[in-house]
């Protein structure tokens, strides 16, 4: 029987917000056409669409650890399906210097193993100051995977996103 966090995540994949994003081509769960099987829970591989940039892919894959979802927020990083490892730095999305995009996708912190964003569990645990500095981006159990994906999607489609 699925765990409560797994059931909640599965329900959110069927929500209007998630499905509308899938139909717009914004994000989705990696399907069997690209991944033989999803990893064991609490890990899931998803993709997010990125703006067109020369030499950069149209979508990036994320490997997210969803332990305790939604009480706890997801954590994860960009993933390389061909190597089944974290995406190498040279293949990761880059942002303009000092931009929000560059900061969130930085690789010089935690070895690039988590996003430098208040929604990311690892980043949030290490930055209690963000609760007061960025109160609009505090994760709570009313947030869903769509909040997380929409942040990544917005950054990958912003003017600050440069490609890889």
């Amino acid at each position, binding site marked *: 029987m699925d765990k409560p966090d797994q059931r909640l995540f599965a329900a959110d994949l069927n*929500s*209007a*917000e998630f*499905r509308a994003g899938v139909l717009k081509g914004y994000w989705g769960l990696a399907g069997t056409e690209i991944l033989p099987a999803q990893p064991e829970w609490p890990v899931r591989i998803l993709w997010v669409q990125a703006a067109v940039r020369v030499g950069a892919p149209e979508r990036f894959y994320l490997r997210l650890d969803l332990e305790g979802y939604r009480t706890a927020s997801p954590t994860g990083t960009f993933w390389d399906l061909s190597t089944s490892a974290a995406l190498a730095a040279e293949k990761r999305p880059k942002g303009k210097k000092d931009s929000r995009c560059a900061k969130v996708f930085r690789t010089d912190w935690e070895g690039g193993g988590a996003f430098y964003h208040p929604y990311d569990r690892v980043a949030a645990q290490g930055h209690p*100051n963000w609760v007061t500095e960025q109160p*609009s981006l505090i994760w709570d159990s009313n947030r869903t995977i769509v909040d997380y994906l*929409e942040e990544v999607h917005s950054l990958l489609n912003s003017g600050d996103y440069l490609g890889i």
Partner: protein
Amino acid sequence: MADEAIELFIHSQGAKPKVAVAGPHEVLRDVLVRAEVITEDREGLLVFVGEWEEALTESGEIEDGEDTHDPVDLTLTIEALELHRHRHVHIHKCRRVAVEVHFNGNMKRHRFSPATTIAVVTQWARKKFDLDPAAGADYVLQICDTTKQPRPSEHLGEFVEPPVCSICFKLVKEITPQG
């Protein structure tokens, strides 16, 4: 349009959107009753389809502009309403949502369709305040007197509760994580 059923996303005031599945020959009213978002007694409710983007074409000089999005006839079918293309259905008592956006001591107004996404309102506001498109991307809407910044894909109608058909936003710069 093929005969297969399609997914629809139904938005109501003050509620999370719902998914409904409908065939092309079904009447919209029947779909909405089945989804329990309206009853047969639907007095005062207006139903809009699609995500409305008209404000993005509004000239910079126009003050207090208004969308022209009209409600639809609920006796029409999914196919006739082209919902395979529009996908989104909005049920609301507000025909328009009067939006005020404040930035740098100035204020701009527009009366939007409730079927407008926050992304469109944000884009409209950045344009109205002449923000450089590159730098302006860091500016987002925050509901006045709160710390709430709605997601770009959320719909305006979800944030107002009739009889109040208006909302106030501030255009604020997103904070870059530090520390």
